[in-house]
């Protein structure tokens, strides 16, 4: 008589055991915490942002669907186009210089040097210190009255008056780009250094014996072998430069006369300060195609080199 419930119990337990050893069910269970957070706070807002760009929502007032009105408005807005131009300039110039100096620094650090580990550690400093706080330091370095750069140049007798770094459109652009390059070099250099360390020195020895000069060694050994990692590093670098907000916001807030406004800072200004959430969201959404193009360009542009040089085509 008592055997029926016991069977029932064992049936239940075995079903539970079976369920918990089913990898699909377990996998789902393990994915719940991460999946929930990413779906709610990443995927949903991504869609919501695109939707908000199609409405005229303001802070404290629900909006109605207005179609592409925000975009039509932006299309005729010269400040928006100026911010697009600034973002492009900022991304292209900063990425190229970061790559050049970063690769150079990586190759210098890849040599046999005294205190190599220590050097590598301090080179990363600009990357780990909060960007906003180092941007404050740059703001002070670029001060119109008491800039240390002006001070040094005056002491050396090179200039007469202090330089107004952030006061003129073009010098402001150059200054913020320089700060961004400073911030980005360590990441590029250290990741490329990790790539360089995987290249076997015997390849260089063989090349030296064959009479290859330094440039030929770089061109035919270092660069092809480094290409995959260059592609990834530059994709990240372009991505983070394109969407930069912190440096600009601390140093210039987009000024003078919008000369350093990036798309991210413009969307913050319109949406949060100006209260036009819909318009800000439209600017943010307008970044997505540029962003995809930039990622695809740096990724495939660099990947293609691989088969051009006779590597695997994957």
């Amino acid at each position, binding site marked *: 008589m008592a055997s029926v419930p016991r069977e029932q119990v064992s049936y239940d337990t075995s079903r539970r055991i079976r369920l*918990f050893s089913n*990898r699909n069910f377990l996998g789902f269970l393990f994915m*719940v*915490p991460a999946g929930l957070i990413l779906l709610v706070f990443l995927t949903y807002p991504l869609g919501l942002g695109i939707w*908000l760009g199609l409405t005229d929502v303001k802070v404290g007032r629900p909006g109605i669907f207005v179609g592409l009105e925000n975009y039509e408005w932006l299309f005729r807005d010269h400040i928006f186009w100026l911010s697009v131009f600034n973002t492009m300039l900022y991304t292209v110039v900063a990425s190229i210089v970061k790559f050049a100096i970063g690769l150079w620094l990586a190759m210098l*650090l890849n040599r046999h040097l005294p205190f190599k580990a220590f050097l590598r550690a*301090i080179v990363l400093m*600009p990357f780990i210190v909060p960007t*906003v706080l180092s941007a404050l330091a740059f703001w002070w370095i670029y001060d119109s009255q008491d800039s240390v750069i002006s001070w040094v140049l005056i002491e050396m007798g090179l200039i007469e008056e202090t330089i107004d770094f952030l006061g003129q459109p073009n010098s402001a652009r150059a200054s913020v780009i320089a700060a961004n390059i400073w911030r980005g070099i360590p990441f590029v250099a250290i990741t490329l250094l990790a790539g360089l360390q995987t290249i076997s020195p015997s390849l260089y020895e063989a090349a030296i014996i064959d009479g290859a000069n330094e440039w030929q060694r770089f061109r035919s050994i270092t660069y092809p072998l480094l290409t995959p990692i260059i592609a990834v590093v530059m994709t990240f670098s372009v991505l983070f430069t394109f969407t930069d907000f912190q440096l600009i916001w601390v140093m210039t807030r987009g000024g003078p006369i919008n000369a350093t406004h990036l798309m991210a800072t413009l969307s913050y200004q319109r949406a949060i300060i100006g209260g036009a959430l819909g318009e800000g*969201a439209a600017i943010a959404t307008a970044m997505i195609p540029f962003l995809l193009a930039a990622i695809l360009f740096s990724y495939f542009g660099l990947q293609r080199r691989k088969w051009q040089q006779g590597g695997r085509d994957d």
Partner: protein
Amino acid sequence: MIKRLRGGEKQHREGMAYLESLPRNVVTVYIPLAIIVFILLFPFYWMGITSFKTNEELYGYRGLSALWIHNPTLEHIRHLLFETEYPRWLWNTMFVTVTSTFLSIFCAVCAAYAIERLRYKGSRTVGMLIFLAYLVPPSILFIPLSVMVFQLGIFDSNWALILTYPTILIPFCTWLLMGYFRSIPYELEECALIDGATRLQILIKIVLPLSVPGLISAGIFAFTLSWNEFIYALTFISSAENKTVPVGAVTELITFDVYNWGGLMAGAMLGSLPVAILYSFFVEHYVSSMTGAVKE
């Protein structure tokens, strides 16, 4: 014998560097390296000495050398710690950073284990999606998130940050931990399964202890990322006492009538110290997490 082998290996690594002469090296290696390192470190030096200079020295240094402190003072730091809300911001930043780091590591461990070891249906796709999530920048998410944060009633509270920071941290940590879990031999898990261990026991007793370096790397990196986060904290926090250090320094310490550079630089320096100290203890983990995530 081993020592000699090591020596040989070292020589091998140096390659043919011995062919290069010292004077040549000074010009092509040491001087450029010194200049780059100087430029990379100068802003920190300037930040540091500014925060110990008196105001007279800061604004009237004609005649004195600007590059050195002549009358060191702790006035700026005292003012910062006792007359502003700076300690409060430090506490907020610490709380938000630690909580969101632990939350993210927990989520990332579960997700990475499931993707890498349970290999459920579609786990490859989910892995790719998580990598793509890493590429979504906060600057296109802050507007919709601010609307959501407001509707959820967590605007201007630490929770707004604790719940949104993981969207930046989880993709990175998951991607990193997947690489670590992949390196643990399957046989260990199979043995444990045969011995009747559940998946949870395997994760806690076998996989996690073996991936401690990976956990530290992910933790350090997540800690720095959330300590440095700015745009979400700037958008979601409005009252002075709830701000984090980066936001507080930018919005509250800047008084536009009188530029208080000493105080501002002291704030920047103190805010950088925690990550700098943590970093100095775990440099190797940090470098491996940064390069590891890119190499995958």
